């Protein structure tokens, strides 16, 4: 069994072995191995040129990665926490995201974003910033929930000719375990049915896939489908519409703040394209629009819990 963290590490290591254009850049990633130890041992294997400790400068990390990418490298940037991408936002959105459209120049960079809450990280170490980048044209956004997908999607992200935000959920690092194929393989940027069902579908991604599975594992005998989006850009519209067609009732779960979250886009898609298939309102469970508080009872009060998802599903099933 491999943890989600080991799978990310493994994917990065395998791809660095397979392609010498791949290099890692980030704060404290070389000798120290990264704040979460994803690049532990990399320095010894790949040397300081390819496992680069950078100054504390997120705009610098993303900006120089863009420069390296357009001259032929495949940089993988680590944000120490996803939250700090706010300091590299401009380079990612304005320089990387618009480059291909404007000048036909590809920017193959991957930005690893350790995201999410649930462990008292507080307002600056718990965010889920994926929607910021969904809203910015030209950036792909993926968010795996299992070790197997984490490895495969990271490899897909590195091989993709576009800037890709790779959301790795911190709460899954050591909790999510599973079998992971050896060697390199690509996981497609499409959705995956995590558990088939027909009475209701819960649509989620990242850590919320686990919350959804747990919440609906034994829900008064209802057969609940869980659709793991895996990729937010591109969004697998066909898979979403297919699940809705089969299940007719939908709960969309986001760990991110509610307004304009990925789930809002999913709900809008369903409202427009699957209205006739619905047997009830599209129900959303998300974090309210507040900064993620530090103290455990406060944090637990805002993050979507197993109980909240259960309750939302029960209500909708009875509708």
């Amino acid at each position, binding site marked *: 069994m491999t943890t989600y963290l080991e799978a990310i590490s493994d994917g990065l290591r395998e791809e660095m072995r397979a392609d010498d254009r791949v*290099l890692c850049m980030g704060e404290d990633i070389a000798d120290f191995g990264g704040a979460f130890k994803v690049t532990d041992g990399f320095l010894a294997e790949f040397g300081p*040129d*390819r496992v680069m400790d*950078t*100054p504390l*400068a997120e*705009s*610098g990390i*993303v*900006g*120089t*990665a*863009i*420069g*390296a*990418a*357009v*001259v*032929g*490298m495949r*940089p993988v940037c680590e944000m120490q926490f996803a939250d700090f991408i706010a300091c590299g936002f*401009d*380079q990612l959105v*304005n*320089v990387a995201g*618009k*480059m*291909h*459209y*404007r*000048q*036909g*120049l*590809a*920017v*193959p960079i991957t930005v690893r974003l350790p995201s999410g809450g649930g462990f008292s990280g507080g307002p600056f170490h718990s965010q889920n910033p994926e929607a910021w980048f969904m809203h910015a*044209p*030209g950036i*792909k956004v993926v968010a795996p929930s299992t070790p197997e997908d984490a490895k495969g999607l990271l490899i897909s992200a590195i091989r993709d*000719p*576009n800037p890709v935000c790779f959301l790795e959920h911190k709460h899954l690092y050591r909790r999510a375990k599973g079998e992971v194929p050896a060697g390199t393989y690509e996981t497609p940027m499409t959705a995956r049915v995590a558990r088939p069902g027909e009475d209701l579908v819960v649509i989620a991604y990242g850590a919320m896939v686990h919350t959804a599975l747990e919440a609906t594992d034994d829900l008064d005998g209802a057969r609940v489908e869980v659709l793991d989006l895996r990729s937010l850009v591109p969004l697998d519209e066909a898979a979403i519409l297919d699940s809705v067609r089969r299940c007719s009732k939908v709960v969309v779960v986001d760990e991110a703040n509610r307004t304009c979250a990925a789930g809002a886009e999913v709900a809008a898609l369903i409202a427009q394209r699957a209205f006739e298939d619905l047997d009830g309102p599209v129900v959303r469970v998300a974090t309210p629009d507040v900064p993620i508080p530090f103290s455990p009872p406060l944090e637990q009060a805002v993050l979507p819990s197993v109980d909240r998802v259960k309750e939302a599903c029960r209500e909708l099933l009875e509708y």
Partner: protein
Amino acid sequence: MATQEVRRPYPSPEREAADDGVALLRYMLLMRFLEERAMNLYRQGKVPGSFYDGFGQEAVSTGAAYAMAPEDRLCVLHRDLAAHLVRGVEPARVLAQYMGRAGGITRGRDGNVHFGDPSLGCVGMVSMLPDMMLVATGMAMAFKLRREPRVALTWFGDGSTSRGDWHEAMNWAGVQRLPVIFVLENNQYAYSTPLSKQFAVDPVQRAGAYGFPGVTVDGNDVEAVHAVTREARERALAGAGPTMIEAVTMRMHGHAAHDDMRYVPPELLEEWSRRDPVERQERRLAERGVDVEAVRNEVRAEVDRATEEALAMPMPEPSQATEGVFCEGEAVPLGDGRPVR
């Protein structure tokens, strides 16, 4: 022809210097005449949006770009049209770019000087200043780690030195001793903001604090800019790290076409008009026996032809407005520019 490849064996260094001098003048003239033409097209309503030029600053982009080899890489800013011309962009495509035509370098996706021809080793700027400092730094980082004898260069304005990306790039380049050249175009104003409101310490003095030299050069002397950039390039190739070059010049027009720059004292403009970089190079070449008028006529004719060609180019197809957001094929890295010598 200014855009033709000049590749001849040089009988002597003096001869080389003389030919370079003519080429430098040609690129400055080509920039000046093209921008004048674009301004006319703007007044005729053929250039949408706004129009920015580098009148009076032609020596800075010409001299610096001319010092770079085809395999070097450039991030070109908004007063630097000549850099594109030196790299080999055809003048007609520049005018088409201003007019939002399908034949412009960005095919109508971006306007004015926001372009770079990737096949010629250039990345076009974004509006956010000075974001390209970091992109150039990253190119140099790749050159260094691949141990390639190549250099990256970018220009930036005095105003943009106040933003954080400037510091991040200067610091990064210094820490890693990268083969990168930063050319500050000190044109006295950032839009309406004079230097005195921009910084307490001149940026060229700050270079030392980042661990590499800052040198000041007369930004209206194209041969001086060329020479100092060549030296910086040699330094970079020798592994001695970055150089910051401060080219002191003056923005002789408004920030953009709409700006009457009433905030600039007239005496200042008068003083700088006596130091016009184009006239200065013409005088120098005339003393060396060059037929300057012939060069002018040649360049004018080239701009006329380019104008006709650009005006004949179609506008982009509206149906293509949503295409090409993502790269669907292979990521192709930047290509080489055209050899200048």
